[in-house]
């Protein structure tokens, strides 16, 4: 323990019968101009040894009182003859007190645990902050595992506050919950900053760490690889002090489904200059049917329908299926093929004269399931493909310190749920088998009160989030959830969050029972926190601590869309050109137009050909694309489908030419 006895005295501990000190709370007074406020960490030095040791107590100020020797306000009114301005002429100011209540952070020694003794109160130094927050157990040395979360600042003291990686990312505890009002709490910024900090400080010997971020609204997470427009000297100083490089994420991959038309990706990161690391997110029948439960309404789909879906998944999907009812063997790999299979089954039942059931499934159930499954590709158009084209996250080859942003902001709610369920399930499966490529994955979900609400139906997504919250830490699957109202998130999700961050809070939210343990002053401070300030709860911290964090060193969503405006909606040929140019820069609009005109394929076929190119990433993109079109031309010439006329753009109109 450092010798801090020479440091100035800030205040003195006081206790009265009406306001006694306890082992977890004490009171002290200070001079009127003492640099103390709510959240200030102080150290108490007792002058009475216990078992031969002078106790030191650390506390954080949770409440402050100021009063004068006035017994009632009426006395002041009398003294000023009811004229407020008259009070200003008093030659003497009344005796006034600043009395503070502090919650105990730590007793040294820990035993015997006694009420806080009388003693002198000092501002905490940097070393005191480390001791008070028990950070000394995980900072420095060979087992250092501190993750900076921000700077504690009070009374001239600046100290880095670290979280314990074992308690933030597992296995001891895990998960993070961040709450606060929209726009002012800087929840997304805080998570971006913390991810930077994790990537800079997560001990390499603990394995690789990656982040999967769901962008659920606007352009929030669309520019994580672009540098911030400007950081102040103070912010840069904070980065330096906290040992985090002030630069954007180096390895970011974006995934977004296609728009309903399928021409381009449904993301605000659609500027031509940023397409290098943007990939489509599309799934076929197999990927979708595994999570059919997410999309199917429980009220519609009963046990009988479930049984039929299971039958399809186990006996029909991705295999040759034969039955005497069907004329020929079926191999169902796409939604289109599934629909044809349903058509044949229903027609077979109707044509034979042996009742309305087939393999114990009633024809009404079959019709209902057909109806529900068939419209999935419509409801999730752009994400779910009819033809089974799959473009997915790089399961098995996640990169250490890599960020994978899944942009679902433009998807319908059902489709968002599907994306969420499948991505998280895949993460879980791969982590269980230790086949993801990294040992820890942070999953960042905004608007958690929507996906894991405290009340409402027990959805598949909520069950999955509960599962992550309760068991994810053993796997290295860590949930970072953000929400406006913590009270509206399922209590088992927030309850299992080892670490909680609070930005500026809504006063109504603070009035809910979950905040009863906080003092009125702490609540008042929470309701007025500035941007860049957080209150942190962490298992090692005996009490919540206020910290500041620097703005993330990445471009904000708002600035990003200004600097990189989203691309206008493209025509089909331009959209195809743009996609193919990511694979082969020599592809020009004129070449694509020629190909399309010569092949005469339908719009769907052209999109399908483009998607196969993206999925396959062939060496010779032009040849491959042409081959895909030719294949179609050949098959459609049999069915005599006419070519879709496309207007050829003049060569000088080629935005990609040259």
């Amino acid at each position, binding site marked *: 323990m450092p010798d801090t006895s020479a440091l*100035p*005295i*800030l*205040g*003195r501990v006081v206790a009265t019968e009406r306001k006694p000190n306890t082992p977890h709370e004490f009171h002290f007074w*200070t*001079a*009127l*101009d*003492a*640099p103390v406020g709510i959240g200030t960490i102080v150290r108490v030095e007792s002058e009475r040894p216990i078992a031969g040791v002078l106790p030191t107590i650390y506390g954080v100020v949770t409440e402050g009182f100021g009063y004068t*020797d*006035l*017994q*009632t306000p009426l*006395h*002041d009114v*009398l*003294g*000023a003859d009811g004229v407020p301005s*008259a*009070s200003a*002429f*008093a*030659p*003497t*100011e*009344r*005796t006034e007190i600043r009395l503070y209540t502090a919650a105990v952070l730590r007793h040294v020694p820990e035993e015997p645990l006694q009420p806080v003794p009388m003693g002198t109160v000092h*501002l905490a130094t940097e070393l005191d902050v480390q001791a008070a927050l028990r950070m000394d157990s995980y900072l420095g040395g060979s087992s250092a595992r501190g993750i900076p979360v921000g700077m504690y600042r009070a*009374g*001239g003291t600046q100290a880095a506050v670290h979280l314990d990686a074992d308690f933030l990312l597992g296995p001891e505890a895990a998960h993070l919950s961040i709450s606060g009002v929209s726009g002012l709490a800087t929840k997304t910024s805080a998570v971006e900053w913390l991810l930077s900090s994790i990537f800079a400080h997560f001990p390499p010997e603990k394995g690789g760490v990656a982040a999967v971020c769901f962008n659920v609204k606007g352009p929030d997470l669309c520019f994580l690889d672009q540098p911030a427009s400007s950081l102040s000297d103070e912010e840069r100083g904070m980065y330096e002090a906290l040992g985090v490089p002030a630069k954007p994420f180096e390895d970011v991959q974006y995934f977004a489904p296609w728009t309903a038309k399928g021409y381009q990706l449904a993301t605000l990161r659609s500027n031509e200059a940023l397409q290098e690391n943007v990939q489509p997110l599309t799934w076929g029948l197999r990927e979708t049917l595994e999570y059919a439960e997410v999309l199917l309404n429980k009220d519609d789909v009963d046990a009988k329908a479930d049984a039929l879906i299971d039958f399809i998944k186990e006996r029909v999907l991705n295999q040759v299926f034969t039955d005497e009812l069907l004329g020929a063997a079926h191999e169902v790999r796409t939604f289109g093929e599934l629909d044809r299979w349903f058509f044949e089954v229903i027609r077979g039942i109707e044509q034979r004269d042996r009742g309305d059931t087939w393999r114990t499934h009633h024809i009404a159930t079959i019709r209902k399931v057909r109806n529900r499954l068939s419209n999935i590709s419509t409801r999730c158009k752009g994400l779910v493909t009819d033809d089974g084209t799959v473009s997915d996250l790089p399961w098995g080859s996640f990169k250490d310190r890599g960020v994978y942003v899944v942009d679902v902001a433009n998807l319908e709610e059902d489709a968002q749920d599907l994306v969420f369920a499948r991505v998280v399930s895949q993460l879980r499966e791969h982590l269980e088998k230790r086949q993801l490529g990294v040992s820890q994955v942070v999953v960042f979900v905004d608007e958690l009160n929507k996906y894991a609400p405290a009340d409402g139906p027990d959805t598949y997504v909520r069950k999955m989030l509960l599962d992550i919250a309760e068991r994810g830490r053993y796997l290295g699957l860590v949930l970072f959830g953000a929400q406006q109202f913590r009270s509206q998130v399922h209590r088992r999700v927030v309850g299992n969050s080892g670490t909680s961050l609070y930005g500026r809070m809504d006063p109504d939210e603070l009035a809910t029972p979950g905040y009863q343990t906080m003092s009125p002053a702490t609540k008042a401070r929470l309701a007025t926190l500035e941007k860049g300030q957080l209150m942190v709860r962490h298992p090692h911290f005996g009490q919540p601590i206020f910290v500041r964090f620097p703005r993330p060193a990445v471009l904000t969503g708002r600035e990003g869309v200004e600097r990189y405006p989203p691309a206008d909606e493209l025509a089909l040929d331009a959209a195809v050109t743009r996609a193919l140019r990511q694979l082969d820069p020599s592809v020009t609009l004129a070449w694509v137009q020629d190909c399309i005109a010569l092949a005469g394929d339908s719009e769907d076929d052209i999109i399908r050909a483009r998607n196969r190119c993206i999925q396959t990433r062939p060496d010779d993109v032009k040849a491959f694309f042409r081959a895909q079109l030719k294949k179609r031309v050949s098959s459609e010439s049999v069915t005599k489908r006419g070519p879709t006329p496309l207007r050829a753009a003049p060569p000088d109109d080629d935005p990609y030419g040259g």
Partner: protein
Amino acid sequence: MLAMNAVRRIVSSYAPPGEGATARGIARAIRGGGLRPGAAGATLEAQREVEAPPRLEAATAVEGLEMTARTVPGEPVVGIAAFLDGIQRSRVLVHHAGVPLVHGAVAAAIRVRSARRLSAWSTPLRSHALYLPVPLMDATLVAALRANCAVVDSLAEHDAAQPLPRHPSDLAARALTAVQRERERSEQALALDWTAEQSQPLLMDGGIAGREEVARSRNVVGAVKSHRTLYVVGDAMDVILHLREGERSTAIALSSPRRTAVATWYLRLRDAGARGPFFGLLRVEVALEPGEDITARADLVSRWLLAERAPIALPDARWDVMVYGIRECEQYLTAILNA
């Protein structure tokens, strides 16, 4: 810098008490003498019966020939730099053979004003002692008590020609008087220190005539709140009792064989209305200097005192005549006497 200022002010303004110089030390000393202190009762100050009846006393005018009411000219002005007060607490701890042994505690302090805030000037005086009639006590017991605490003979000023008092209440009253003398001595000692070191006005609670050096100092002003003796006779009393807010009486001279002569006048701090003739009435004492323009001085000092009406000294029962600085000083003394 802020922190340093705060720290400087948080250091104790008084020295820690020594062994035997606290209420506990006195009780310990009594036990050491083989006596058992009883339960603490009310203070003797609270039990004190009125010793002398109210009276009128003639005085010589030093400002004109007759007693008149004079409006204090000009606005109130801040002139007082510091405030002096003293407190005392006396309790009978035990009766030994019918003789009360009284614990007397005394404290006095000066609170100096700087930037509208009051703080301790110099070191406050504190004392705890056992007040007892030594001639009536067993010498061995007195010696045993002296070994552990300060002992003051409450009959030290008794006229040897008179028989020794024996009534316990009489003895307790004499102890109380001795404690009061000790308090006055402490106040006078501090006032003397102030006059020796400072050139700015000091306001004392009570009269200033107890010590010659103080009574002659131009830096000391006394504020007397009680009026058991009114220094007027005849029609002049009407003038005083009917002073209006902001008016003072003609200055008069007070002199007695045992005290230094001082100039004094009555000043109405607050409108009495229907609250009685003494409401808001203060008697002010200053040094009497031959040849001085007492009118100018009385007016200036009165303006100083009128400025001290704010902040109001409530909830003190004597708030109408109590200057806030004196009340604050009293609060400070109560705190350190109990510390």
